[in-house]
């Protein structure tokens, strides 16, 4: 019994995604401007005082929102920078964020695919072999306690020596970060089937491979997608981390680095915003596949 509501009633507004999103965005923007003023004005006042300048509030406000290297740039500054580096520059130009996103995206995706594959394979091995579970599982976990940025330059040096350059070293770092959530999630997921269902297949004397295909894999789907979402975000982080020591050969990571190196906060933030958008698009993409798979498995809503 669905209640009918007027298309413009409060109720319908309450249930509309764009309205909710808009409200949240407006609230965030206001907060952002306030925070920018709060953070930047501190810096400005210090500067004024050092130089013994006189100042008033209106000057402070206008300065806080138009600093060249603010502590926190305003959304409009970032927006303008984004506009400049996305629409006003040729995509093939090294000053275009689209160009850099492309570089990062390619190693992210490659790393994600490798990582998801490795993660699933490891999980399958662990679920099916007690020996692997006992021997490998603790080291899968330990592997993640090794700080990747510490070994990233080494990986890049070693791979570089083996003449692997370009996106592969970065993709390997991405893989290193992204295989883990997949392994952990899938080990759990592949063990999620109902005892009764497992027993049912035992009565058919189904082979491990059949049990896997018919039962373990489908029951692991919710776990798989939850971990893939984390993995793809991790993969992006890996690609960007990988771009730091690869010696500024392009990509969002090197934009972040050089922005950071030259104190260009606006540049850092616009690279961050692009990275964030890229990340959420990737997560949404995984979510899209999840919905499709769910629909095929009869799960709606």
């Amino acid at each position, binding site marked *: 019994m669905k209640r009918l509501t007027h298309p413009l009633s409060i109720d319908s507004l309450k249930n509309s995604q764009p309205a909710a999103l808009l409200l949240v965005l407006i609230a965030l923007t206001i907060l952002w401007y306030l925070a920018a003023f709060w953070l930047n004005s501190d810096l400005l006042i210090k500067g004024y005082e050092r130089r013994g300048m006189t100042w008033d509030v209106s000057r402070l406000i206008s300065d806080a929102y138009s600093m060249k290297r603010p502590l926190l740039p305003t959304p409009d500054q970032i927006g303008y920078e984004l506009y400049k580096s996305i629409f006003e520059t040729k995509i093939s130009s090294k000053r275009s964020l689209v160009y850099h996103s492309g570089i990062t995206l390619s190693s992210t995706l490659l790393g994600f695919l490798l990582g998801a594959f490795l993660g699933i394979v490891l999980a399958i091995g662990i679920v099916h072999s007690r020996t692997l579970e006992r021997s490998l599982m603790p080291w899968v976990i330990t592997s993640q306690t090794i700080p990747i940025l510490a070994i990233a330059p080494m990986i890049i040096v070693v791979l570089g020596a083996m003449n692997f350059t370009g996106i592969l070293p970065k993709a390997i770092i991405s893989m290193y970060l992204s295989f883990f959530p997949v392994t952990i999630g899938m080990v759990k997921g592949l063990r999620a089937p109902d005892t009764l*269902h497992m*027993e049912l297949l*035992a*009565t058919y004397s189904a082979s491990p491979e*059949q049990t896997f295909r018919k039962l373990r894999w489908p029951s692991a789907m919710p776990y798989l997608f939850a971990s893939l979402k984390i993995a793809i975000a991790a993969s992006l982080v890996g690609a960007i981390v990988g771009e730091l020591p690869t010696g500024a050969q392009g990509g969002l990571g090197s934009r972040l680095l050089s922005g950071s190196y030259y104190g260009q906060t606006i540049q850092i933030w616009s690279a961050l915003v692009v990275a964030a958008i890229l990340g959420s698009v990737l997560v949404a993409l995984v979510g899209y596949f999840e919905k499709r798979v769910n629909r095929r*498995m*009869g799960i709606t809503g």
Partner: protein
Amino acid sequence: MSMTADVFEKSDVLAEFNPPQSARKMITIEDLSLVFETNDGPVNALSHIDLAIEEGGFVSFIGPSGCGKTTLLRVIADLERPTSGTILVDGTSPEDARLNRLYGYVFQAPALFPWRTIASNCKVPLEIFGLSKELQQQKTDKYLELVGLQDFHNKFPWQLSGGMQQRASIARALSFEPQLLLMDEPFGALDEITRDHLNLELLKIWHETGKTVVFVTHSIPEAVLLSTHIVVMSPRPGRIAKIIKSPLAKKRTLADRESPEFVAVMQEVREALANDHRID
């Protein structure tokens, strides 16, 4: 996969086959006990069970709730290991019997996969046994029709009523036509008429194919109507209180229920049950 073909060839042969007079034992259980260890002490689920089931027999387990019927059936199916005693299924260990895909099992709960439609659920064993797509479709159609779910092929389990789910799980167990049927209260969730109908269908299948059936039920008339032997169990520790051999002819109809022999057997079962009853 060769196993599968075997199972099917065999059952095709069996389709023209009359129940054997031979007394070859399908299941032999000797001095079998089973104890569950739980957080609060051991539970004696089965204790010193001795039982022999002939090939082609139809044996019902009946007894108070919690007396170990399901556990015994699970032991036969190699889903539970006995703590002591021996058991042979078709002359081999339960494990080998299971690996030979000797039996079909209907669980007390439907145990359907929520991500598959009803028809697709029915096909699970057929896919596993490697049947051709056509044969899968044919068997599925046949047995879903038998249980009256012909209109529900494309529904998901949670779109079905409890009884319908149970019927789907029966169709699934019948679909690959196993030698031995292990059924745990298969008709418990069904109304009388549907139940009668399925009782007759089961009798017909049993009769025509010479399968061995081990059947758990709470309904005394049902047990009497279907079985060649009725095993009355008593609870904690689960023991066999009495084994009642049915004097009824192999071929039965619903009308038999009015016969004096039938009523006499019912009475016997009821007494055996009441004798040792305790609710727990």
